[in-house]
Every structure is written in structure tokens, then in C-alpha cells.
């Protein structure tokens, strides 16, 4: 099984620890992913802004980097959604189709492919509020959605429930968007920040010490909002918890 690791650009720049945790977590399952060295970005920033033509070269680079692997694993629901559902600026060759199909978000990879049943090295004795990124939730279906009448399920919570001592708290608005929204957070800063403030207050009101998510992008935004409000919330990527971080 040849597995490639995709570390999204903002994680590369701001969340080195999360990248390392993802890599080490996969190695615990005897998956030794390769890290294609020329990787940059999935193209989402341009595509999200409607600029598909401007994303073409980035998408082509992505495919050059990741063609030929059995699995491409990315610790980001948002980027996985972009690759799987929106990577259409590049010509849709067989190779491109395969890269798109074989890209998995980390939680999916652990839950659906490796079918992990235990994380014996983990312990996280804290109250955790789990944040579903909207693309992870409504784009690649990490969990059931509050708007739909469907049987409840949650892949990330299935995994977190295997972590010793971890206590999940429930928010008043379980899957309301936090206002990051990619380029939205820049073009609409006022609403974006208000949504972020409301979101982190909701985490705090639910009694959370930690906010955990499979997407660092939302958490960068929420962390910025929580710090400014003086809320004592800590933010961790799910990869860090599952890899055994205790705080």
C-alpha cells in the first residue's frame, strides 16, 4: 500500500506540530506515508473565489505530486472536499480522476479504510468540544447533519470515544458554521469575526477546555477570536489527540 501525505499550505506554514502528529499517527498503524516534496496547495483559495482558471496550474502540480499512490491522506476535510468534489480546473484525465478518488481525509482514512478499533496509547482527560468543519460535515459527510432527518452518526466522534478520559461536551448550536469560510474571512471580516466569537462562546458555555477539529483552518480563525475575547480555550487537531497528546 503506497500512501502519500498531503500537508495543506496553511498547516505547513502555521501548524508544523499537526503535520508531525499526522505522520507519526499513521506510522503507528504501519503506514509509512511518503511526503511528495514539491507539494504546495490543493487550489482551493482560487477555486473558492471563483477563479478556476487561476487554479489550473496549482491543480496540475498537485496531480503531478500525488499521481500513482494507492491513497493520499490529508489532515483536512476542507482540502479533501476541494480535491474530491471541486478539482475540475485541471483536465479530467484518468490520472486526475484516480488522484481525486484516492484522496482521503485523515478521519475517513482511519475510520473507513484502516477501520481502527482502538488507540491504546491515547489519554486525554479533558472536556472537549468537537468542531465539524462545514466541508467535512456537509461536503464529505463526516457526520449526520442537524438539518436532515437521518440516522445519527459521526466518524470523528467514533474515534474520539476510543480516547481514554476524553469527555465530549455538546454545544447549543452543534453544527453552526464558525465563519472562517476560506476567502470569506477576509472579504467579509465583520460577519466572519462575529460568527467566530459566537462559536467560541458556544464552546466555552458548553464547558469545553479544548476545541478539537479535523480542520486547522477553522481553528486558526476560532483561536484568534477566543484569544481576543480572553476565553481560556485551547485548540488541538484531532491527529494530535489520536497520536497520544495528553494536553
Amino acid at each position, binding site marked *: 500500500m503506497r500512501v502519500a501525505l498531503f500537508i495543506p499550505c496553511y498547516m505547513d506554514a502555521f501548524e508544523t506540530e499537526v503535520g508531525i502528529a499526522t505522520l507519526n499517527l499513521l506510522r503507528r498503524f504501519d503506514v509509512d506515508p511518503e511526503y511528495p516534496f*514539491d507539494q504546495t496547495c490543493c487550489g482551493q483559495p482560487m477555486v473558492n473565489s*471563483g477563479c478556476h*482558471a487561476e487554479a489550473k496550474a496549482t491543480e496540475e502540480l498537485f496531480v503531478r505530486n500525488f499521481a500513482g499512490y494507492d491513497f493520499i491522506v490529508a489532515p483536512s476535510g476542507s482540502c479533501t472536499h476541494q480535491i474530491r468534489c471541486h478539482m475540475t480546473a485541471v483536465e479530467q484525465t484518468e490520472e486526475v480522476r484516480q488522484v481525486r478518488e484516492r484522496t482521503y481525509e485523515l478521519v475517513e482514512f482511519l475510520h473507513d479504510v484502516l477501520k481502527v478499533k482502538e488507540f491504546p496509547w491515547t489519554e486525554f482527560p479533558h472536556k472537549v468540544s468537537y468542531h465539524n468543519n462545514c466541508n467535512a460535515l456537509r461536503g464529505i459527510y463526516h457526520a449526520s447533519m442537524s438539518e*436532515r432527518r437521518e440516522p445519527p452518526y459521526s466518524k470523528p466522534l467514533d474515534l474520539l470515544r476510543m480516547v481514554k478520559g476524553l469527555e465530549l*461536551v455538546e454545544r447549543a*448550536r452543534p453544527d453552526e458554521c464558525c465563519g472562517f469560510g476560506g476567502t470569506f*474571512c477576509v472579504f467579509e471580516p*465583520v460577519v466572519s*469575526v462575529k460568527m467566530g466569537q459566537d462559536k467560541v462562546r458556544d464552546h466555552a458555555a458548553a464547558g469545553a477546555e479544548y476545541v478539537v477539529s479535523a480542520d486547522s483552518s477553522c481553528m486558526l480563525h476560532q483561536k*484568534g477570536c477566543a484569544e481576543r475575547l480572553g476565553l481560556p480555550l485551547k485548540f488541538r487537531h484531532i491527529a494530535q489527540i489520536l497520536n497520544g497528546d495528553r494536553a
Partner: protein
Amino acid sequence: MTLSKEPRRDDDGLPALLHTELRASDDKGAKGPAGQRLIHAEATSRPLRDAMPEPQPRGAKIHRHRPIDHNEAARRFIDAPHHEKMHDERLWDLRQKRDGQMHAIPEWEELRELASEIKQHTLAHLGDYLEQFETQALANGIHVHWAQDGAEHNRIVHSILADHGAKRLIKSKSMLTEETGMRHYMAGVGIEVIETDLGERIQQLDNEDPSHIVVPAVHKLRSDVADVFAKKLGTDPRNDDVHYLAEQQREKTRPLILDADAGMTGANFAVAETGSFVVCTNEGNADLSANVPPLHIASIGIEKLIPRIADLGVFIRLLSRSALGSPMTQYTSHFRGPRSGAEMHIVLVDNGRSARLGEPEFWQSLKCIRCGACMNTCPVYRRSGGLSYGATYSGPIGLILDPTFDRRRYSSLPFASTLNGSCSNVCPVKINIHEQIFAWRKALSESHDISTSKHAMMKVAGVVLSNPRLYRAAIATAESALKILPNFVVANPLNSWTRRGRNMPNPVTETFHQWYERTKGGKEDRL
């Protein structure tokens, strides 16, 4: 199942509405006069409290040739915290009631699918169904008119009124007549128009557009309404009790209704099989408008057709549950022909609909039954208010309808979304709203209708992100990374990120890439 942990009342377990606007001072689960429990936010009331109420924030500024600045209008709304909080909570309350109704119906998702398919089928055969509808309506004794656009609609309505010497028109709520600017047009030709829907009447008296499809004055606090009524109806400016205000409005408006020369309604559904149409209201005001004067004119968008009366039940079951979280509207009125001695006219209006039907990516928006569920669930709409969109239609459905009316003015609106997808999930006719917002961004970019600075930034981002060496250099420091990285790309990213109460991400001393290179992926660290 994960149940919401929203605060609940101790006495009756109902959701605790946090904003004082939404609770009576003596509220014990808000009981009605007959002791029944009132669960709608609108039903609760409390007397005057603030001596200095917060002024109502107004909507987006309209410049003829410039795109709407939604962010600017949203800032003014959010800077009025009483309004913003009340608005967010009132609409979230509707969303929660909608969820409650959904959970009570096991076949909910099948109903949505069925409604979507009926609409799709009807739109695919729209010409045939319109002809059938016209034939049946004519046979029922209804006069049928066709209007290509809003201007023609207004002229037709005016000519019908002129033929009858009608000077005063009472009307129930209609988004279509907002589209055509009918009230404004009629003012110019000397016809007095009286809105009979309470919320719409408030907006008319305040000379403001409706901010929501279903609850047009939902952005107003009761103190705002007290101000408007005091100025326009002569009520006590210090009394903002909702029962007082509603009663006063009724007393002042009812004589105008009784004396009106003509009445107008819209239609929620028009049934091809029977040539009849259906209007759903909670106030019964459509029935007054239609049945008191001797002339009834109904303005109907051509997408309102459904094939058979048997199809109606599917939509009636979905409409009010999705809109307000109530099982159905208080009144579901069927109109099939004129009363004896009266006349009934229908104006079937295109106004861009047939052109939209021809657009492969955007025709689905014609399935819309105007329930407003997408607005209630939209986290952006709830925090910015409907008037911040500066358009007839606001919220998610507005983002995909408005650019079809004025591509340049509304070119910024598809960007007033996080693409979170909640709107598509609540849509009772399964319009892929957030995917259409996404598709609109692409269409607007391709026709160069997005701002040149945004386009230029994306070009730079596209070059840097497709070149590993440039990319490495760009993310070497947090500051330069924020300048080039995706989600932060604008002319002044640092400012935009931090100005409104958000701290910068912490810079790292070593990127993941650098770490991997230095340690050979951690393997040399281990040695």
C-alpha cells in the same frame, strides 16, 4: 442521537429564548388568553422597558453602478447589538422549530425529494402546464394576462385598475410585486396601495423593503415599530407592547380595507389542472384583500405552477414547517374564479424566469417556494440582516437569484457566504443553493464581474501556489505567509484579519516542510 444542549426553561422544558425582546416580563412559558401555551417568539410580549432604545440600523447603500457592499451594511447591523442578537436568536428559534417539525415526520426526506421532482417535472414542461392553466382559468371565468417583465406587469395592473376607476388597492404580501417595484410605480400614477400583511405594512409605513421573504420586519425591534407607528399612525411613542401596536394598526388600517376599490394577492401555488391558485397566510389578510373589494388581481410568477391539485399536499406539508416550524399556515385559501358580481384577473409574470430556466447551472433556483428556511438557517444572514443585501431577495436564495436581475450590482453577493451548505439541507425542494453560490462565483469571475483587485490577487496566488520554490519563499515567515496564503489573500490581509477582534495565528519557527527536510521525516530525530 445528539440533542441540542440549548438552555431550556425549568418550568416547561421549552427552549429559553435569551433575548429579552423575545420574552415577556411575567413569562411563565408564555400562556395565551385561554391558558394555552404560546411557543412562537412572536407571541410573547412585555411592556415598555428601555427609555433609550437602540436606533434601527438601515440597509445597504445603493449606488447605481457599484456592487453592493454587504460587509459595510453588515458592520452597521452588528454594531447594533440589540438588533443583531434579537435577529439571530429569533431566526435560530424558527430553525429549531423547523427541526422539531422535521423530526415529527418520518418521511421528511422523501417528501423533499418528491417536492423537488414535482417541481423539476413541472419546469421541464412549463410551457404545456402554463397553457393548461390558462385554459382552465379562462374556463373558470378568470381574466388572464401575460407580462414579459416587471414593467409590463405594473402597466397591466394599472390598466386593469384604470378600467375599473380604482384608486385604492389593498394587497397581501407578494415578493413578485417587490421584484417589479409595483408600490413605487403605483405611487407615481396616483394609486394608493395598502399592504395588509402586518410585517409588510410596517415596512411600507417605514418606507423600507422587506428584509425577509416570510417575516418582512423581522429585523425590527418592537421599539422600532413603536417609532414608526407613532410617526405614521399617531400611536403612543412610549408604548411598544406588541398587542397594543398590532391592535392600533388594525384599527387604523381596517377602514381602508373596507373602502378599497380593488384587492391584490400573490400566489404560493397555481394548479394547472384546475386553473386555480392557492395563497397561504397566517393573518387571513389575503382573504380580506381578495374578497372584500369587487376586483381581485393575482400576480403570479410563472414558476409557481404545479400540475395537479393532488400535488398540492406535498408542498403544503413542507411549506410552513420549513418556514416557521408550524405544521401549516392558519389560512390556505383556494381561489378558483370570481365571486358573483366580482372580477378576477391573473397576471402571469416572467421577469427573467424563462431565461433562467435555460441556464444549465442555475435553473434549479426556479423550484423555490419562498419559504425562507435558507434565510433562517444562514449564519451570515442571521448576523447581517436581510437589508444588508440591498436586493429584493436576501439570504442564500437571494445570492443566487439577485445576480439574474442585475449582474453587476449583485456581483458581490455570492461572496457573502461561507459555503457551509446548511441552506441546501433545509431547502424543502432540495435546491442545491450552496453549490449554485459556488457556481455563481465562477460565472462572475469568468465574465470579469468580480473586483479587479480580487482577481489580481488570485492570479498571484495561482502563480505562487503552482511553483514550489516561490511558495517556499512566501511561507518562510508568518507575515509573508498571511499575505499569500489562500484564505488570507487580499490587499490588506493583516488589517482584515485583526481589525475586528481576531488575533493573528502564531508564527512557527520551522514549517512542516523544513522540519521534514531537516529530520528526513523525523527518522533522523529518532537516531
